[in-house]
């Protein structure tokens, strides 16, 4: 597996890519907070937020549909919100029987359900955009500038750096299990569920030991290269006038969205 196997960075030349990662991170968070603040049914403001997303997509040279195509990851969670369809007081729209219960969908419930989905859909696209236009090490560096404690950012940096190594380790373990688990198609084989869980547990234990011992080797290798407890980056982060301009524009836009959303 290659070192960038887990990378979500999408290499392009664009204004957005060159923005300071701090600005991109804060604008993303601000946009998501703004979505959370908008009241249910603020369709005009939601539409404006979506236009903003679309514009950033285009400005990043991704094409308009880039984040849309990847935006369905949060969809399974919609199941958790489905109860508001029935539990909000309001005018009944439709009702049906399921097993022994009567369910009635209300207009208020529908409004709230759709609003939750739209908020979530907009927010997840913005988060997708953030990692597509920012290299992950730059993102970690931005978090450091934004006062996230060094121990956490260092752990995150290590996690990101060694994830593909350990994923390789996992695939070797999985392949080993696979090659020892002959089965006739369509037939149950290989012991009880408990036994399978135990095999998976042994694999996890094996992975733990390999990771533990690897971390020792990594530490020694880093010491020999002059590691002093801090990670450095070669990308100097300095705010340029274009960064301030972009930040001011985004703040103004979020402000406008909030005002429109309250009419």
């Amino acid at each position, binding site marked *: 597996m290659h070192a960038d*196997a*887990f990378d*979500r960075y999408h290499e392009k030349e664009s204004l957005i890519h060159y923005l300071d990662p701090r600005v991109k991170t804060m604008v*993303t968070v601000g946009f*998501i907070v703004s*979505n*959370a603040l908008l009241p249910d049914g603020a369709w005009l403001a939601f539409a404006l937020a979506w236009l903003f997303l679309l514009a950033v997509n285009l400005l990043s040279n991704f094409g308009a549909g880039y984040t849309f195509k990847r935006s369905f*990851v*949060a969809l*399974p*969670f919609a199941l*958790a*919100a489905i*109860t*508001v369809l*029935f*539990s909000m*007081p309001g005018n009944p729209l439709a009702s049906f029987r399921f097993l022994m219960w*009567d369910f009635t969908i209300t207009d208020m419930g529908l409004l709230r359900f759709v609003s*939750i989905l739209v*908020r*979530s859909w*907009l*927010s*997840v696209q913005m*988060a997708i955009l953030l990692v597509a236009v920012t290299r992950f090490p730059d993102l970690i560096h931005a978090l450091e500038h934004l006062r996230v*404690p060094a*121990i*956490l950012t*260092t*752990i*995150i*940096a*290590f*996690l990101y750096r060694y*994830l593909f*190594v*350990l*994923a390789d*380790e*996992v695939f070797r373990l999985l392949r080993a299990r696979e090659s020892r688990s002959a089965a006739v198609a369509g037939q149950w084989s290989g012991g009880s*569920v*408990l036994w*399978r*869980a*135990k095999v*998976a*547990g*042994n*694999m*996890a*234990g*094996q992975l*733990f*030991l390999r*990771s*533990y011992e*690897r*971390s020792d080797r990594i*530490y020694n290798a880093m010491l020999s290269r002059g590691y002093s407890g801090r990670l450095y980056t070669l990308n100097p982060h300095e705010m340029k006038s274009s960064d301030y301009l972009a930040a001011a524009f985004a703040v103004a836009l979020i402000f406008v969205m909030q005002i429109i959303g309250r009419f």
Partner: protein
Amino acid sequence: MNFSPVPMHIPDGFLSLMVSIICWIITVSVLGVAISKTNKSLGERQVPLMGVMAAFIFAAQMINFPVTGGTSGHLLGGALAAITLGPWAGMLVMTAVIAVQGLLFQDGGLLAMGANILNMGLLTAAVGYGLYRGASGKNRAAQLAMAGVAAWFSVMTGALATSLQLWLSSTSDLRLVIPAMLGVHALIGLFEAAITVAALAFIFRTRPDLLDEKSASAQAGRGWVFVGGLIALAVVLLSPLASADPDGLNRVAMDLGFITNAQSVTGPLAGYTVPFLASAFIGKIAAGAIGVIVVGAIIVLIGRSMQVSKSSR
């Protein structure tokens, strides 16, 4: 990259701003304590170790095993991280895992990350380590059995906290979300318990020095037993209470200003009762406690059978 998302990573949009911010405040304060404790007790050597261990938890979640009909179980890892690395380090490791899942894979939102870290990182580590620590000094079989109970409780705690946050955000109806979430996770928790016990048994067998009295994991204070026990007790008492008497909880939430309209009081669902949840809530608590004892007994038996099959080889 394929890893099945667990229905516990809350995306953005599902929590209200107030609930998100309160969760962030709790998470940041606990992490502040965790960071100062780890900085004090660990050398710089431990930071790369924690980083690689975070990658380990992430990678270990990819190890799945077929259960039946296309579904598969896999590890969440909160209890395992806390048991092997100690509670504070376990919390930091889980925080890094959840942060990367949210930032890089959009598995869980950014504004909702405070809640996600609280549910899957801090609570799981606290209850997982606390219960496990309660068995320290006992024989290995008892320790493993306790680790299984701890792993099961860690999953249930996370699920309960998630349900409560969704309810406080007026996203889910309490009397539907609690039975649904806890029902699914009671099963997921069994897999978690089985994998955690098997992984620990493997480590006991091959590198017992990593888990003995001198290890980082055994150095944390006994106060964790109290914390873990308290959280587990809260889960046992609160989950039956929440499904038996949601109106009471709605009342509390209204008084605290979380919910403006207690939905299920006036809603079209007001009159309905789930037949087997209909009796008085003292009975519910008893039923919940019995359920927990039964699950605990199953896990102890699983732990024993794994122990026996090992020594017989």
